[in-house]
């Protein structure tokens, strides 16, 4: 009954025996107490992706990033030597939020040589050093050199900017990403500089929304409309070609008939017109003979690799030579901010521009179905009508994710207890 070979244990899930095959609790997605625990255990200890090098296009640029779960705002800069740095976005003088425009609750970005606190005019360089104290001689024995911004650990992998709020991260970024994720850096991310960005405030726990993007079991029933009316089949099945776990991270590769090779009658008129759709523009850019970093298991008819990088970054690379990234930022136990970026090799013609536009339109159309439905999932979970839920082999990544979250929270509590 399987289309693709399973591991010798008989299933992907059994191949990772630490997961078990029992029912899974989603109390971690409804409990206010658990949310408070994961804020510290996860969002102040894990490496978090806060942007891409493209967000800091030249020396002297910066952006701010609100991390509600970690109870802070970050200021990420590229200094005049080109080094990317991150700081708590907080003035050393009296704790005012240093950089904002419009309202302090909104993120901002820009370029300049220094940051001036709106409150009392203290100034800081792009390297976080304090350069000016207003009425300095009124203070009592202060030394500007000791009054810089609070630095946050910051590193870059494959153009993705990560921060870590721990005083001393347990691992470097590369160690943290590990041997499964790091080879993805061979993918030519740097060539894909044309971006479509989306943002949403969703009424579900952050993990509930991530779950919808780390299994495709839901696609035939929920997204029946991805095929034309005559070919819709809510009973169609989905099977991932390859699943892999490594540390807190996980991935799936898909295989199947590529959308751009479907018979015309299966497709919508605008897919044929725009030569694009839910797998991206059909006419792939020329990335050379061999695109590195993709399809680690060498599956035939490879479609996508979906990497779930703990805790809240998803990167999908597509066979058609583009990629997207999703980030899920908790704002409370049952709300989160969803950020999506689609990245393409820049269009050089109107036809290419339209193919990208149609792909970006398509992603939003189907993501709205996910977002609308997950509102209902959160409500269902909060009813606590059931306390455990059966997960199938195609939902192995969901199972692994919730176990990883539980492990991180438990390990952090144990470390705190041991330190007391």
């Amino acid at each position, binding site marked *: 009954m399987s289309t693709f070979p399973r591991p010798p244990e008989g299933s992907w899930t059994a191949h990772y025996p630490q997961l078990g095959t029992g029912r899974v609790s989603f109390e971690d997605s409804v409990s206010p107490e658990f949310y408070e625990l994961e804020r510290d255990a996860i969002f102040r200890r894990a490496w978090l992706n806060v942007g891409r090098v493209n967000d800091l296009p030249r020396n002297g640029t910066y952006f701010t990033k609100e991390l509600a779960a970690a109870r802070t705002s970050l200021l990420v800069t590229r200094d005049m030597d080109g080094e990317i740095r991150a700081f708590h976005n907080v003035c050393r003088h009296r704790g005012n939020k240093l950089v904002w425009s419009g309202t302090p609750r909104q993120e901002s970005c820009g370029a300049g040589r220094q940051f001036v606190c709106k409150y009392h005019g203290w100034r800081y360089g792009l390297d976080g050093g304090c350069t000016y104290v207003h009425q300095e001689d009124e203070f009592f024995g202060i030394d500007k050199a000791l009054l810089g911004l609070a630095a946050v650990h910051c590193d870059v992998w494959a153009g993705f900017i990560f921060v870590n709020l721990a005083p001393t991260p347990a691992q470097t970024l590369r160690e943290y990403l590990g041997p499964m994720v790091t080879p993805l850096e061979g993918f030519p991310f740097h060539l894909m500089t044309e971006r479509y960005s989306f943002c949403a405030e969703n009424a579900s726990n952050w993990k509930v929304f991530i779950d919808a993007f780390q299994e495709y079991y839901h696609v035939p029933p929920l997204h029946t409309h991805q095929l034309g009316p005559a070919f819709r089949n809510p009973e169609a099945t989905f099977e991932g070609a390859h699943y892999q776990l490594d540390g807190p991270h996980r991935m799936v590769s898909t295989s199947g008939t590529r959308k751009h090779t479907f018979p015309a009658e299966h497709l919508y008129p605008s897919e044929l017109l725009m030569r694009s759709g839910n797998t991206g523009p059909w006419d792939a850019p020329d990335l050379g003979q061999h695109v590195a970093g993709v399809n680690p298991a060498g599956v035939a008819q490879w479609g996508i690799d979906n990497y779930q990088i703990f805790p809240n970054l998803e990167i999908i690379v597509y066979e058609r030579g583009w990629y997207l990234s999703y980030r899920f930022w908790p704002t409370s136990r049952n709300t989160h901010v969803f950020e999506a970026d689609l990245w393409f090799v820049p269009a050089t013609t109107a036809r290419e521009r339209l193919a990208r536009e149609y792909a970006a339109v398509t992603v939003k159309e189907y993501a709205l*179905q996910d977002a609308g439905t997950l*509102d209902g999932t959160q409500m269902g979970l909060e009813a606590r009508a059931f306390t455990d839920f059966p997960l199938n082999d195609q939902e192995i990544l969901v199972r692994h994710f919730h176990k990883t979250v539980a492990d991180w929270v438990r390990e952090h509590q144990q470390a705190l207890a041991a330190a007391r």
Partner: protein
Amino acid sequence: MSARLLPAEFADLEPYARTWCLPTEPERWERRLASTMDEMHGFYDACFPRAEAAIVYLDGVELAAMPDDATRLLEMLCSLALVSYVVEVWQQSLPIDTGSARIDRISEPRP
């Protein structure tokens, strides 16, 4: 009557230009939500058959240096992409089961 908005070859689409030549997706999305099904079918039925010719026309113009009329034609085709989901896929303004969800496009290439 004011001057034409689209290239002369696409004068037949002028009646839709004021409504659907919108430079950003947020504007096009709001227009989609504010339009009736009849209005969107009317636009789709007029624009879709002309779209391939419009793409061929635009491919003869440098994307980075488009004159205003060509830019508006491209914007109209972007509106067609958005309205095509209403007409071809959902038969309603919003995707089925959207509920109260909302996803905002906050940046995009221009034109």
